[in-house]
């Protein structure tokens, strides 16, 4: 069913003027007299905003509505840079003005329920939105009850998770600024799967960057329930080079699993006893965002099963789930992955609304991590559909070489900045 247009044909069409029309309608468009299809997108993060933008870009005749209660979105990517003083919160805050200017209807309200039978979304105000296709991109929620003594109140006061950027990032940043020299920072990542697999380790790196310059007698301890972690070799090498003796990683055998917290003693309980911290960052285990549960889109894993070609829920028809909340095979839960999924879902929905088969999916992930100011590393992945679901294409992707020289590491750090500037424009611009 592939409808490839060869270069030669394309040129021919261009000369005859046919391609002029085709170029103007890139991705195709319905004739003006056809019914205007309504697509509603819930969630204005990396997944939802990408889907909304590309639905409208690829088919300007669509009615696209983006439901997002927050007026601005603070990105998790680069929020670790804020902890190191390398970025400010305003610099990583995105708004929906440009999307509105593209003709997308922004509804600044929370969606409270979904009726998959009647195809409607109910908003907090009681207002109802009808859809032909719905995209749900609810991000993550925390499993508060998995660490004894930890709860949302504690996260908002003494032990921030800082894994949804914004006030949580500011709280952790303030605690670092207030900490005495010679203090200990505990960073406690969860078991897999969780949002942004290299995130806790970039965080430890950039906290060390701040401490080395401002409080050099301090240290960072990572308490990890996992045997291994993302980009481990590259992080470990970078820590030894930039922050010798400052970052200590403790795996499960070394008491890495946090069982409970004691906020009055500012300590955490592990298999090997209590560990005290002056700043304690608990990143709790995660599940799909709340709306996914309310709408019955999750399975027993706590995440949302989807058709890997269109990201349509395998539970509810005409509802697509993208981003951290969905089960996307080998893809990590990252902002880049969510954006890639948003585009694939957008293109698939446009074809489905016309009664056409979606093209087979092609998905990408690129995650930069900063270890020091001029020291960047990356992991890349290109994904396709295999019998096991969404899988990485053998021989592609992978990590920054472990023997990369300083020029390459510096270039990766510069590309990290360049990546951020482009992806936020690609999504919210």
């Amino acid at each position, binding site marked *: 069913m592939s409808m490839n247009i060869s270069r030669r044909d394309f040129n021919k069409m261009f000369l005859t003027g046919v391609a002029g029309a085709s170029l103007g309608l890139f991705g195709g468009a319905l004739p003006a007299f056809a019914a205007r299809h309504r697509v509603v997108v819930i969630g204005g993060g990396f997944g939802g905003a990408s889907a909304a933008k590309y639905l409208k870009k690829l088919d300007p005749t669509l009615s696209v509505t983006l439901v997002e209660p927050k007026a601005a979105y603070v990105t998790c990517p680069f929020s670790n840079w804020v902890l190191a003083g390398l970025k400010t919160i305003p610099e990583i805050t995105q708004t929906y003005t440009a999307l509105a200017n593209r003709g997308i209807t922004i509804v600044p309200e929370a969606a409270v329920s979904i009726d998959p039978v009647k195809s409607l979304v109910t908003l907090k105000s009681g207002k109802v939105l009808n859809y032909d296709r719905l995209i749900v991109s609810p991000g993550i929620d925390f499993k508060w009850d998995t660490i004894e003594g930890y709860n949302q109140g504690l996260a908002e006061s003494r032990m921030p998770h800082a894994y949804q950027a914004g006030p949580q990032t500011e709280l952790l940043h303030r605690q670092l600024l207030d900490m005495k020299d010679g203090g200990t920072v505990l960073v406690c990542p969860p078991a897999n799967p969780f949002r942004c697999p290299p995130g806790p380790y970039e965080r430890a790196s950039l906290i060390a960057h701040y401490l080395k310059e401002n409080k050099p007698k301090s240290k960072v301890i990572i308490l990890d329930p996992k045997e291994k972690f993302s980009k481990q070799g590259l992080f470990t090498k970078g820590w030894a080079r930039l922050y010798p003796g400052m970052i200590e990683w403790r795996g499960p055998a070394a008491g890495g699993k946090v069982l409970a917290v004691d906020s009055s003693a500012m300590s955490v309980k592990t298999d090997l006893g209590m560990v005290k911290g002056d700043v304690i960052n608990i990143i709790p285990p995660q599940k799909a965002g709340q709306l996914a549960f309310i709408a019955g889109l999750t399975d027993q894993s706590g995440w949302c099963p989807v058709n890997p070609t269109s990201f349509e829920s395998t539970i509810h028809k005409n509802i697509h789930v993208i981003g951290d909340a969905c089960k996307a095979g080998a893809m990590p839960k990252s902002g880049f992955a969510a954006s890639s999924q948003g585009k694939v879902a957008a293109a698939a929905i446009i074809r489905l609304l016309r009664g056409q088969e979606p093209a087979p999916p092609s998905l990408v992930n690129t995650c930069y991590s900063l270890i020091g100011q001029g020291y960047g590393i990356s992991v890349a992945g290109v994904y396709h*559909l295999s*019998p096991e679901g969404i899988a990485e294409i053998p021989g592609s*992707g992978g990590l920054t070489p472990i023997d990369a020289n300083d020029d390459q590491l510096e270039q990766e750090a510069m590309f990290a900045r360049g990546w951020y500037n482009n992806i936020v424009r690609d999504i919210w611009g």
Partner: protein
Amino acid sequence: MPSKLKIYLTAGLIASASVPYGAQVFAVAKANARTASQVSPRGQILALSCAGCHGTDGKSVGIIPSFYGKSPQYLEEALKDFKSGARVSTVMGRHAKGYSDEEIHLIAEYFGTVWKKNK
């Protein structure tokens, strides 16, 4: 689940079957008259994620190279050179190895023409 996946996969393989470029010209020539308002859906799906680093339609604002306005020929050659390693890169080689030559052709065709609509 496996049987469902097999169906998706089969659909994918049929759509992406690597037909030689020359043969495609004839295969699609007739279809073009009625699909003139469509870009290759496969090319589009392959191309869209590139914008995640290079900017929408390849229009970059920072240090990452912009490829907006480049020709399909230029883009195809660049991607093939990244894939082979003839062109040195940090991350592009790792990405380019994820695509067949036919897929690279489709990506180059998409970005090599998408900018013309803005003219």
